[in-house]
Every structure is written in structure tokens, then in C-alpha cells.
């Protein structure tokens, strides 16, 4: 006996096997991203007032990427429809456009990521708190932090800091919480009551241009990486997982575009099903971004 309904739909459900399978898989994906969004909400609601930064992400780039993905949602349907209308040439074009959109999205996303990796929060021991860029020996530094500044054998005695213009970003977390037994709570409370943007403004006003900082004066230095704050943690986690989904989808669609498209000649119906199933997955990936964009960039 062969496995039935691999290509033709089962009469009473009206679906072929892979279509049931992909919908179930998407249901589990909804739970996966649902859990991450719930975590985002819980972490944000539980965050101290000044711990959740605003304006860190570039809304224009995000909007552009949103349009890229929405366009790919259209082309992915057009690719499937072309096959349904027996037009293989158009399929090749639209599928190619979809894959192009996918890689354009990933390219823009990696540009956004790399911008974050060289953008810093700097807290000095005198209480000044700034965001900006770091240069070590004339080169822009990525992924630097206060632990690396003092790493044994690789100490960096000083670096150049280019502060951001005033009020570019608000609510950047002030400093690493450092409760030393007993006094800790009071010290923390003090730091919290001081509004972030004020210190920021002060610092910015005082130092518009580059300043040379001694590593021994640094209280905390952190690039905008996951460890920077819970906000960046969840940002990188959700967008990273979403990016992996985009990459996975793009690889599968590339396979159907080039080597896998041979199936069109031997089993056209099965090939159309494949395009449909991968398209369903692609729509889901788009949909996740439609939620991600407002939640992370706008709210």
C-alpha cells in the first residue's frame, strides 16, 4: 500500500497531507512566537520606568523592511498562481523576486544589527551617562565592554568616545545594578530617581565632540548587544529567531526555484503543492514581522 493523499486531497477533509502538516506546524509556531511576545509584555510591564529605552531603532529602515516583506508576500502568491495558470516562466520570475526580497530583508537586518554592535552606553564613575560610538586606536570598536577593557593581557588603557547628539535616545538603562549588602538598595534608588535624559543632556551639552576616556574611569561600557539590557535581549532574541525563519524559508524557496523545479516536468501537481506549502510558511513569517515591527519599533 502507498501512502494516500500525498498529492490529491482527501475527500472528507479537502486537504492533502502536507497542507494539514504545515498548518499544524504553523500552529506550533504561533505558540512559539506567542510565548516570546508574552515574555516581551511581561518583561516590559515589569521593567522599572527608566529601564525600557525608546527611539533606539531606526523606524525608517524598519518601515522599508516591512514593505520588502509585504511585497514578497504578494510575489509568493503570484508565483503559486502562475503555476496554477500553467505559466512556468512567470513562476520563475516571481519566485526569484520573492527570494530577492528575502535576502534584501536579511541584508537590511544585518546592517541594523551591525549598527547596534558598535553603538554604546557609557557610564562613568562620576555618574555621567552617555550613548555614542567608541574608537580604539583610530578604529571603530565592535562588541567592546567593561570586562574586555580590563581583560588581563589585553588591557585597553583609554579610548575615544563620540557621544550622540542630545535626546537621540531616551530611557537608556543607567548602570549595572550593584547592590553591596545593605547600602545597595539606597544607591540603586538614587540612580533611578535621576531622570536619564537629563544626565544625558548634560553630558551631551558638555561634550559635543569626541572625548578621550580613561578605562579606569569607566563604570560600565556596553554595546547594544543582548547583554546590554532586557530590552536588547528580547529584541535580538525575537528578531534573530524571525531572521532564522526568513533564512530557512529563503533556502527552501531557492531549492524549489532552481534544482527542485525539475519536478514541474514530472509531477506538476505535487510541485504546485510544494510551492503552496512553502508559501503558507512564508506568509506566516511575514505575519510575525507585521507584529514585530510595531511592537519593537513603534510602541
Amino acid at each position: 500500500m502507498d501512502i494516500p493523499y500525498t498529492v490529491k486531497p482527501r475527500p472528507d477533509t479537502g486537504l492533502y497531507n502536507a497542507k494539514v502538516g504545515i498548518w499544524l506546524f504553523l500552529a506550533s509556531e504561533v505558540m512559539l512566537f506567542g510565548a516570546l511576545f508574552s515574555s516581551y509584555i511581561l518583561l516590559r510591564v515589569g521593567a522599572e520606568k527608566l529601564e525600557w529605552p525608546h527611539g533606539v531603532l531606526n523606524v525608517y529602515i524598519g518601515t522599508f523592511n516591512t514593505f520588502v516583506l509585504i511585497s514578497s508576500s504578494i510575489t509568493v502568491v503570484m508565483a503559486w498562481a502562475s503555476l496554477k495558470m500553467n505559466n512556468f516562466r512567470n513562476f520563475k520570475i516571481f519566485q526569484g523576486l520573492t527570494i530577492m526580497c528575502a535576502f534584501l530583508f536579511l541584508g537590511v537586518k544585518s546592517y541594523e544589527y551591525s549598527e547596534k554592535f558598535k553603538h554604546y552606553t557609557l557610564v562613568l564613575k562620576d555618574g555621567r551617562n552617555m550613548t555614542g560610538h567608541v574608537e580604539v586606536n583610530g578604529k571603530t570598536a565592535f562588541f567592546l565592554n567593561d570586562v574586555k577593557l580590563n581583560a588581563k593581557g589585553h588591557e585597553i588603557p583609554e579610548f575615544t568616545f563620540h557621544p550622540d547628539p542630545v535626546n537621540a535616545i531616551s530611557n537608556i538603562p543607567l548602570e549595572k545594578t550593584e547592590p553591596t549588602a545593605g547600602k545597595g538598595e539606597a544607591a540603586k534608588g538614587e540612580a533611578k530617581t535621576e531622570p536619564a535624559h537629563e544626565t544625558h543632556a548634560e553630558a551631551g551639552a558638555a561634550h559635543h565632540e569626541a572625548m578621550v576616556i580613561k578605562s579606569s574611569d569607566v563604570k560600565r561600557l556596553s554595546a547594544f548587544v543582548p547583554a546590554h539590557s532586557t530590552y536588547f535581549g528580547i529584541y535580538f532574541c525575537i528578531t534573530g529567531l524571525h531572521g532564522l525563519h526568513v533564512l530557512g524559508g529563503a533556502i527552501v524557496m531557492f531549492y524549489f526555484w532552481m534544482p527542485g523545479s525539475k519536478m514541474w516536468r514530472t509531477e506538476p501537481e505535487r510541485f504546485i503543492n510544494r510551492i503552496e506549502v512553502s508559501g503558507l510558511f512564508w506568509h506566516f513569517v511575514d505575519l510575525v514581522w507585521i507584529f514585530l515591527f510595531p511592537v519593537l519599533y513603534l510602541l
Partner: protein
Amino acid sequence: MQSKSHDTHQHVDQSHGHDHHHEELGFWKKYIFSTDHKVIGIQYGITALAFLFFGFTLMMVMRWQLAYPGKAVPIVGGLLQKLLGEEMVGKDALGHIGVISPDLYNSFGAMHGTIMVFLAIVPLAFGAFGNFVTPLQIGAPDMAFPRLNMASYQAYFLGGVVMFCSFFIPGGAAKSGWTSYSPLATVSDLGHRPNGQTFWLIGMVLLISSSLLGAVNFITTIIQLRTKGLNWMRLPFFVWAQFVTGFLLLLAFPPLEAAGILQLMDNLLGTSFFLPSGLVVAGKALGVSGGGSPLLWQHLFWFLGHPEVYVLILPGMGIVCEILCNNSRKPVWGYKSKVYSALAIGFISFIVWAHHMYLTGMGTKISTFFQTTTMIISIPSVIILTCFFITLWGGSIRFNTPMLFALAFLPMFGIGGLTGLPLGFNASDIALHDSYYVIAHFHYVVAPGTIFALFAGVYFWFPKATGRMMNEFWGKVHFTFSFLFMNLVFMPMFFQGLAGMSRRMYDGGATYSLASNPDSIAALSSSVIGLNKYITHAAYGLALAQIPFIINFFWSIKKGKKVTSDNPWNATTLDWQTPTPPPHGNFATEPEVFRGPYEYSVPGHPTDFTPQNQK
């Protein structure tokens, strides 16, 4: 039947082109990288049984420490030290090697839970029985996605390897309980990165992915591949149980996967999703940003954790149902109410999770909600159990080994279920939480409950898988002593728990004993502490009782009594209407179903069973 079975070999599964010559499959394709659901089921079964045994040996070492705190583990002490290092296994006052350290005790405890739940019971109940039996019972040639099925076994196996290897890395395996509560799980082994917890998380992500692939495959198979005439109300209860289990895995596991990813980031990238601000570890401030929520981990964990309990028990109920009907020669009582109860369990199990968290201070209003739903979910479980008991009424019962295990399941699961009620009420849970009472409660559900159902299933479907029966006499010996020792192990734990003994005591409660605290009115009396020794000896008895099973299992594969027909138990469901053992593709022609699954002793019928595919 037998001659027809050869024809089916030539049928080729379209979805994989490399399989064009089934008869010439080499050893690797046939047994290791097989896409046949029966082979995969057996792979799952053997791997899971091995992990079941491994998890049990971890517990035996822990039980020694509880009964004889600070004394060297006999026999295997030296071996343990060689394998795990001198940091983990030390010498006692007399110079004997084999005293396990608190860290090792903790990691054995955490890994015992993880291995038993995620690597032994679920793969055995869902992976092994689900894979082997479900397609046969619905008259399908295979699972809907055979290669996905293979991938899910491989992901499971890899997850198992990662978990197993974690014992031998610096710092040892995960040691923060099978629940891995943060921040403990993140800060418990700061000296090592990656540490046991990292391995645990990577292993879990693999196991969860495996379960997700399996769940997609099972549900699709049951929806799409039911044979002609097999409508939903003609499905055997076993298939219904697997169906609901599939949905639980599909929808409850992803949040734990999300939680696992977040904790992995806490562990490797220095984020603080589950680390609150101002955390001080060993007198030093932890260098992280803070701002996370430990409660978030618990919510995400138990959102899986509670449906997981039903993942553990539902397939067991399915197996028991098949065996009870078959061996009491009666239709199941209340088929529809059982099906609806299983579905109700499935839905409600998603809204009871926080009854594990009454003592986290999440608030009385939330506790009240979860207490209410917890009481409601006990109703469908009681309906199913009641239907089982009434099914026996007036039957002509055959007391063979599978039936004995299935019968024992009923009171054991009953004890386990009823003792859960005091834990579900948040007032009484305050006293019982985190005590040995909890251990006794859930082990009664899972050990003499689910594991007995799984043993019943092994004895029951063994002849279908191998064509030979397992030995009845040794089966009964296995049953009698397992039943006796299971109760001797777990019953005393109720009393220890009620006396207030904490479940996480490395020294078996000696620190809080009356002997060490003569003035305390709340100290544990010597009779409560003394129970530790009885329990430990009973656990070793339980281990001995498994020897007949292990020998019987392997001996019967080669030397067991050959079955005389394809249907040795005179059963009605489709799994017994195939050749024995079923060939690749299972059925020679597509079977057609004309009746319900349990038509035993139909008046006026020549035999006392009417197969589903008989007109």
C-alpha cells in the same frame, strides 16, 4: 495473508526516490535510517527503555545517599569516581571510595527527572507505541511523513546523547532540578561556561523539536490516513489518546522552547531575562543588567509542564483501554464519554499550570482561578477511570500478563490522582508543597501508573512486532514483584511528606531530625527518617524485579513461543488484522472498516470477537 505480504514489499513510497528496491535495503537503511514507522517505533522503544533504566540507576545512587548519608556507595562507588572525578565522588570516614557530593546528588536528581520524563516515558508512550500501533490501528500504510518521522527520532536520539554527555563535562550535569528554575539554574555553575545547564538547554531544544515534528506527523496521520469506513467514532480509544497527546505536545511544547532559548541566552550571552535586578551570588554582585523576571520562567515552564502530565498519562490510558476490553471480552463502557473526556482533558490542561506556583506569591485571585480549573480537570479523569472499572463488570476476564499490568494501573492511577487533590487546593498545598508527599503523588501517577501501562503494552504488542509471545510465567513474576515493590517504595513517602520532610534533602532529612534538634517540636522523628532505609531497600528490590523482564524481553525475541495466528489475543482492532510481523506498507490491500472498535461477545455471533474489517 502471509503470501500477500510479499506483494506489499514492491509498493514504493513515492516521497523518497532512493527506496526503489525495498528488498535490497542494507542494514543501515533497514534498521538505522529507516523510514518505516514500525522500525522507528522499535528504535524509540529500545532507546527509551535504555534511558528508563539509566534514569532508574541514577535514582538508586541517590536513594543510597538518602538512606545512608555520607557512606560510600557500595559496588559502583569506585566506578563512579573514575567516571565523574574526585570532585564529585569522594571518600568516607573509613576511606571507602564512593561518597557522592551534594553537587552530584543535585545533578542526579535533576537528570533523573529530565531523563525519565523527556527521554524515557514520553518517547516510549508517544514515540514507540504511538509510532508502532497508531498507523496499524487506523489501517494506514505508514505515517503521513515517513522521513519527518525518521528526523524526529534522530533529533530525539541526539538530544539524549547531549544529555548523557553532560555528566562528563567539567562541573557535571545540570543540577537545578528538572524544572531548572531561574535564577538558580543560571547562577548554579558560574565557574564553567558552557556548563551542565547549557547542555541541558541544548538537549531540551533538540528533544522539543523532535516532539514537535512527531506531533505534526501523528495528527496529520490520524486526520488524513484513516482507512475507508473508519470514521471518528470508530477509532480505537488508543488512537484518540494519541491524537489528544499530539495536540498537547504541539501547542504546549513551543513555550518551553521559547523559554529554553531565553535561558540559553542568559546562560551564554549574558542577558537577564530571568535574572532580577540586584542579584548577589556568593557575596558578589552578579555582573548583569538585571531587570528580568524569575516568575516568567516558571510560567513558561509550567505552561508546558502541566499539559506534559497528560502527555504522560493519556497514552497509558489508551493502552490500558485496548487491553482491558480485549481481556475482559467486553465492549468498552462509555466509549463516547471517554472520548469527550480525553478531549476535555486536552483543553483544560492548558489552563491549570499555575497550580504548581501557589507558593510563588503570584496572588490569591490567580490562585483561586487555577484552583478551580484544577478541580474541574479531575472530573474527566475520573470519568475515564470509572468507565474502565465498569468495563470489567460482568466480563470473562483473562488474567494474562498484559491484563495484570493493566488492572494494576487502575488503583495505582487512582491513588496518584486522588492524592493530587490536596495539592490542587492552595490552602492545603501550603503545607504539602515541596515535600515527599508531592514525590509520592506524581510517582504514583507515572511509575506504577504510566509505566505499568507501558509494560502492559510491551507484553501485549510484543507478538505483533516479533511474531513470538513473551514468557507468561516470568511475566507474572515481573508483575508481582514490581507491583509489590512499587508500593513499598512510594507509599511510605506519603507519610514522610505529611510529617514535613522536604523533597530536596541531600542527607535524607538528618539536619532536621529530632536527633539533631532535640528541642524542636517540628523536627522529624526517627521513625520518619528511618523509612528512608525501607524505601531504599524496596527500590533495590524493584530493580531486581526488572531482571526477569529484561531477560524475558531479549530471550523471547529469539526463543519465545511462536504465535499461531496473526491475532493471538483474538482482538478486534485493525492492528491485529495484518500479517505478523507487518511488512513495509502494513496491509496487502486497503482494509475497510464496518464497525466500532470493541465488538466483543456480540450476541448471535459465532466468535466472541468481531474484527472491525469484518462485514
